[in-house]
């Protein structure tokens, strides 16, 4: 295997994983923009998406139905979470809210453990496991699914924020909460929407990644952390930043594992993060 095809392999791997990171980072960004909260339960949405889809699929439901239903259910969880735990706290400090999301993350993880047990489960691949070759690297069809769905979700999000009333309202309340209230936007409702939306995105990420990496009740923590990491690298609050950060983290991590040392793969990821922050304290595309 030549170095060239190795590089191609690393990059392809990095792009698929990076896509997932990017989706999770987008989830962080949406909630952060409308509420200022870092939602530590974001990874748990990813986990729930995967786990619910798997259990629905095993009941014999077609894959697509299972996936859609799972996204809906996780969205409902996101809504419920906002209503019950975030909404009642008017004017609490951000750190308090963050601790609440940590509590929620522990809680959701515990519930998932009780429902699904501790073992990993797998969703069948969307279209077989036959690998094919590009430029000396091998890819699974599922990787293309991941990439395709990730990009479509990003596109849909873009369209949503640019062309729908709700999307515009969310953007407005992200840009200036006071001004948004003045023009009649219900900012608190926007917070609810943001939780629903990022729960849905998390669920999508969880579903598409499950055939490749499996799901288990505790898969969310690390994915959530990496997503947070990606969001910070790109610049917190910037959607293009989240996407850039996600792909960058995925690719660099994969190259690092390939060329430096796989023992220090996660350390590589966090060193990248620290370097970026020291050079650009507000992330690559962050507002100064």
């Amino acid at each position, binding site marked *: *295997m030549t*170095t060239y095809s*190795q590089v191609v*392999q*690393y990059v392809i*791997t*990095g792009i*698929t*994983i990076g896509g*997932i990171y990017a989706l999770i980072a987008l989830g962080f960004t949406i909630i952060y923009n409308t509420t200022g909260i870092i939602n530590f339960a974001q990874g748990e949405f990813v986990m729930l998406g995967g786990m619910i889809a798997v259990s629905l699929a095993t009941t014999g439901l077609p894959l697509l139905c299972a996936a859609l239903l799972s996204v809906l259910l996780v969205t409902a969880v996101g809504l419920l979470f906002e209503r019950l735990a975030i909404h009642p706290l008017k004017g609490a400090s951000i750190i308090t809210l963050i601790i609440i999301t940590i509590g929620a993350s522990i809680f959701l993880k515990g519930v998932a*453990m009780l429902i699904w*047990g*501790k*073992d*990993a*489960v*797998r969703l069948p691949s969307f279209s077989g*496991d036959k*690998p094919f070759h590009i430029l000396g690297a*091998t*890819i*699974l069809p599922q990787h293309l699914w991941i990439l395709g769905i990730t990009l479509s979700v990003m596109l849909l999000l873009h369209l949503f924020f640019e062309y729908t009333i709700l999307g515009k309202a969310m953007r407005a309340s992200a840009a200036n909460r006071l001004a948004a209230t003045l023009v009649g936007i219900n900012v608190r409702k926007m917070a609810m929407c943001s939780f629903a939306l990022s729960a849905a995105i998390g669920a999508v990420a969880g579903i598409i*990644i499950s055939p*490749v*990496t*499996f799901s*288990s009740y*505790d*898969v969310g*923590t*690390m*994915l959530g952390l990496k997503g947070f990491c990606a969001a910070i690298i790109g610049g917190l609050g910037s959607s293009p930043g989240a996407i850039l950060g996600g792909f960058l983290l995925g690719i660099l991590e*994969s*190259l690092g*594992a*390939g060329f430096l*040392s*796989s*023992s220090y*793969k*996660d350390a590589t990821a966090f060193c990248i993060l620290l370097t970026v922050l020291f050079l650009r304290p507000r992330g690559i595309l962050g507002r100064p």
Partner: protein
Amino acid sequence: MFRLNKKLMWLFCLPVLLFVLISGCAKEKKVYKIGAIFAITGPASPLGTPERDTVKLLEDQINQAGGIDGHRLKVIIYDTAGDETKCRMAVKKLIYKDKVLAIIGPSRSGTTLAIIDEVQKAEIPLISCAASIKIVEPVKKWVFKTPQSDVLAVAKIIDYLKERNIDKIAIINVSNPYGISGKEQLDIQAPQAGIQVVAHEEFGQKDPDMTAQLTRIKGTDAQAVICWGTNPGPAIVARNMRQLGMQIPLIQSHGIANKKFIELAGEAAEGVVFPAGRLIVAEELPDSDPQKSLLLKYANDFQQKYGRSADTFGGHAWDALQLVVSALKKAGPDKAKIRDEIENTRNFIGTGGIFNFSPTEHNGLTKEAFVMVTIRDGNWRLLK
């Protein structure tokens, strides 16, 4: 108002009555209390859960059969979450609050090592369910263990490699103590057998993808990949190898000896070879094998009670509890005597092998405790 008070009175009286009743019954013979600490939650929970389930199963069976010489057996189980601090507190609680006679577990090597001092100080027998050789080497007076050490698993794998004339291997391991300890053992034993390790790779417990590491291995002239880890990582390794079109054999560790691996890896599990205790291939064993009947019974009982197949981790707990129980039968409720009895156990047939303890050997197994197993048609098959 009066009625309410009456109800309340009953509410208070009921527990008292129950207590009197229970203690009245128990007065016939004292309950034997044994402590158990497993990683029931946390990253090591795939180990701790079957261990706990096995212990509960055995507890029921023993009590239904009349207990130990008429004494009811009570196993108090605590969760360590795989965390040293929590484990330490659980051990303290077992020793000083619950006042148990012996302790089995914990599931992880790290947690075991963290409580050895405590156990030695409190002078209470401990039978660990963790793999690391460091637990019993050097020998500690009060500490035993039932799982086959990774040293033995590595030895078995080296034998297998030599038979196949493989002399260049690549190692990929999970970056937790289990995986790193396996890697270290391979690094020690492989060169002694004239086998060269051409690549070392590592992956995180929850890593979603290992193609980067495997691509690197693919670039070397390794003749086999040895993967050391517990689910789900090894399954991803198997799938990624298939994806990359790697044809060289994949040898896994005994860490994948549960059905989950086959389920997760799917077709990629076919042809994977690994060393394991005889439990998972019990049906294929010759009838002359002394362990066979016992293994079949355990496997069936477990399947019946929990609707899942038993695995070797549960087996470690089976062995540990049975060792304590048999010692208890002979020694009675005396910690020091129980310890002596465990140390004097010879030819004890367990799920993990045939145990022979001695003052210098607190694991009691040889590499014969392992057999090589392969996966064919989604099932375990005994090699040769």
